[in-house]
């Protein structure tokens, strides 16, 4: 069941991870696109700054020429060229689909419009300048001609008017135009054939026409709302850039969030995969069934072991009983039976029977599953004696010196006595197995009274347990015993019992010999399970 559940959640995690990964990629490209857009905008902005600069330089240079401060058009031509180039450059390289291209297109149109005015200005201005420069020459020529006083006065007046028309602000254009036209007509009547008069007429007309023409052109040029448009473009650029920057910020934040999420999910996924594997090992039904089976096998094994102990234990008193019974029987068969002798023998038989009875009782106690035994207060001495009575015989026979250290005989402990005996027995047996092949063999049990707890310290003459084994030693199924001899459950069962008693089971690695320490609290503290149990089943 749990495995199936795991698979489902693993699958859905996979799907979520995929979705998030796709989203992440989308957001990544989104932000990349925004970044390149910003770059583009920044570039356009830089170029626009150049345009702004060139635009004002163009104005400046045009006015220089207009006020005939500048005597050539190289600068005007050069900067107009650069301005147009800069604008074209921006227009060509802008691939952004907003209102920007529209504004840029208008900018280009405006620049072209202005350019046209500039070209016309140059043409007209050249002619104007040329004629203006000719005026003083015309003056002197008129004076030299020796015309009638009135005529020369008319002409000189005309030339004066023309000159002041050129110099004065052009909004009085009409006034001058009328005056000049009048003078010209009288001139016509007067000396129409003279080439000098022809030249005067020509240049006056040219100045009149060109000056107002230029005025119109420059006015037109200055009135092209290019400045407004430039401002609009700059504003638009800043607005768009800000907007995209903001979008980028949001996108990036989301991106980071997604990345973190992704990482967490992947981490979770990996962890859950791992856990699923661990669960598969420890939790899978099949395996736990096997484990239970093994547990009972282990129990059988220890019962078998115990049976052999018990056989020993029973055999000895039985042979004593047999021998004594034979002696008593012999007495009864002879005529002169010695009652005193007999009664001592019968006493011995009784003793031995009692002993066998006790063994039977102990065996009975062992064969039960002690886990559900009630907690009882027992003396440690009784506990130790009971255990020793089961295995003492065997160790003596095998030449293992099992000794018990001194301890206070009225030391008591609250526990499941059988289970603690089981622990000790298990430890002794393990120790025996470990030292079986050594020349001198001893096992020592020490009972230490430490205020709240009692420590059972089992030491054998072995030389400790190597580290890598020590690490695995408490795992279920771990065994170093020859195959078939043990199930490896021994230590883990001890561990289980000790835990039930809220105690501690440890390997003392500091000791030169092999030493296990079992610590059991003197007063029993109920475990959670027991609490629940006791609630379920109030006694």
């Amino acid at each position, binding site marked *: 069941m749990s495995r199936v559940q795991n698979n489902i959640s693993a699958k859905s995690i996979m799907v979520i991870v995929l979705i998030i990964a796709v989203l992440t990629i989308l957001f990544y490209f989104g932000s990349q696109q925004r970044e390149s857009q910003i770059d583009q905008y920044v570039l356009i902005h830089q170029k626009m700054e*150049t345009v702004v*600069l*060139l635009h004002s*330089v163009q104005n*400046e240079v045009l006015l*220089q020429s207009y006020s005939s*401060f*500048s*005597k*050539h*058009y*190289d*600068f*005007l*031509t050069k*900067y107009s*060229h*650069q301005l147009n180039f*800069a604008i074209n450059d921006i227009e060509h390289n802008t691939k952004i689909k907003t209102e920007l291209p529209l504004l840029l297109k208008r900018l280009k149109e405006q620049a072209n419009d202005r350019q046209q005015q500039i*070209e*016309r200005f*140059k*043409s007209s*201005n*050249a*002619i104007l*300048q*040329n*004629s203006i*420069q*000719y005026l003083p*020459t015309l003056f002197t020529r008129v004076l030299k001609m020796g015309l009638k006083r009135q005529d020369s006065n008319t002409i000189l007046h005309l030339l004066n008017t023309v000159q002041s028309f050129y110099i004065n602000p052009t909004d009085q254009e009409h006034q001058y135009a009328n005056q000049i036209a009048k003078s010209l007509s009288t001139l016509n009547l007067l000396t129409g054939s003279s*080439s000098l008069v022809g*030249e005067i007429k*020509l*240049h006056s007309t*040219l100045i009149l026409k060109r000056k107002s023409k230029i005025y119109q052109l420059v006015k037109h040029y200055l009135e092209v709302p290019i400045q407004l448009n430039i401002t609009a473009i700059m504003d638009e650029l800043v607005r768009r850039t800000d907007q995209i920057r903001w979008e980028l910020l949001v996108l990036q934040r989301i991106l980071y969030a997604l990345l973190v999420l992704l990482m967490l999910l992947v981490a979770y996924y990996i962890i859950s995969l791992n856990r699923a594997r661990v669960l598969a090992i420890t939790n899978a039904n099949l395996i736990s069934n096997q484990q239970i089976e093994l547990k009972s096998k282990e129990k059988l094994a220890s019962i078998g072991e115990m049976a052999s102990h018990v056989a020993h234990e029973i055999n000895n008193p039985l042979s004593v009983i047999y021998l004594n019974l034979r002696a008593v029987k012999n007495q009864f068969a002879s005529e002169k039976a010695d009652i005193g002798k007999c009664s001592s023998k019968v006493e011995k038989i009784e003793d031995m029977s009692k002993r066998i009875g006790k063994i039977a009782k102990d065996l009975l106690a062992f064969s039960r599953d002690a886990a559900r035994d009630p907690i009882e207060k027992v003396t440690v001495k009784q506990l130790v004696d009971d255990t020793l009575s089961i295995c003492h015989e065997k160790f003596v026979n095998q030449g293992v010196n099992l000794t018990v250290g001194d301890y206070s005989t009225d030391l008591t402990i609250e526990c499941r006595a059988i289970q603690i005996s089981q622990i000790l027995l298990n430890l002794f047996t393990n120790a025996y197995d470990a030292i079986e092949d050594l020349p001198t063999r001893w096992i020592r049990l020490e009972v230490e009274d430490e205020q709240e707890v009692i420590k059972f310290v089992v030491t054998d003459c072995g030389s400790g347990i190597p580290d890598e084994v020590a690490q695995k030693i408490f795992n279920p199924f771990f065994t170093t015993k020859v195959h078939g001899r043990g199930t490896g459950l021994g230590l883990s069962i001890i561990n289980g019992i000790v835990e039930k008693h809220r105690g501690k089971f440890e390997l003392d690695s500091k000791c030169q010999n092999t030493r296990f320490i079992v610590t059991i609290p003197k007063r029993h503290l109920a475990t959670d399970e027991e609490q629940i149990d006791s609630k379920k089943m109030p006694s």
Partner: protein
Amino acid sequence: MSIRRSILIFIVSLLSASTFADNFLQEPIQLLVPATDLDQRKVILGDRLFHETKLSGDNTISCASCHSLATGGVDRLPFAKGIKGQVGNINTPTVFNSGKNFVQFWNGRAQNLEEQAAGPVHNPGEMGSNWLDVITKLEKDSAYLKQFKEIYNSGPTGEAIVDAIATFERSLVTLNSPFDQYLKGDKDAISPKAKKGYQHFKSLGCAACHQGQGVGGNLFQIFGVAKSLKDSKIKNPNDLGRYLHTNNEFDRYLFKVPMLRNVAVTAPYFHSGQVQTLEGAIRVMAEFQLGRQISDEEVEDIAAFLRSLTGEYKGERLK
């Protein structure tokens, strides 16, 4: 950002000019300066292409056929002669200093040299070819292939060809004319006659149109400002000038004011090529552009001045 820097320098120089009445700005004619930042590899390639007859349909004509650098960058004919002896209807302007022109051709229909260079190749009356043919021919030449590969990282293309030619043309700046030396401060670089001519040039008003580095080449002007040339041969009556290009009434009979640099070696004159001598051209100008009579002495002085505008190419004065 070099643009910005040059603008700044310009503004600063304007300020100083207005304070100190610097001659620099007061003189209508400016010192000719060489083009900067030219890729010399392109110049070399462009030089070769400029002299390459494979650019024409029948492999007889190169740019240099009409714009021979040995004859002032012109053919010295009234009208240019194209392939198969076809005679055109307009006079050949010089390629010297053509990079200084604000637009190209008499009527300014090409914005720059790159745009211009494609013109004659495709003009059936001039070179009568097309890029495909030209490229096929050039590709057979491994030296060309190598050069193009090196510079443009491609084989010859129309774009690369005009780029190289235009770069070469920009290098054709005729520095060191006597008048430039005079502008630089060598008061004896030109004759007193030429100095007088320069004064006339300014006071008569020629400098209103012919000014700047190129002594022209930076504005359009009506040919016949003061007096109509009407049906005169000097102004080809069939040539409506810039109007042909823009269809704008304002542009009727409008022509680019030509540069007068090296004008002494580029006869015959005007877009019609109908005036053989410099003096004749000056007279035409005085009459039709200025609307005044000038004396023979003034004409000679101005001619002397114009002759002082002839510069050098590869260290030799143009002839």
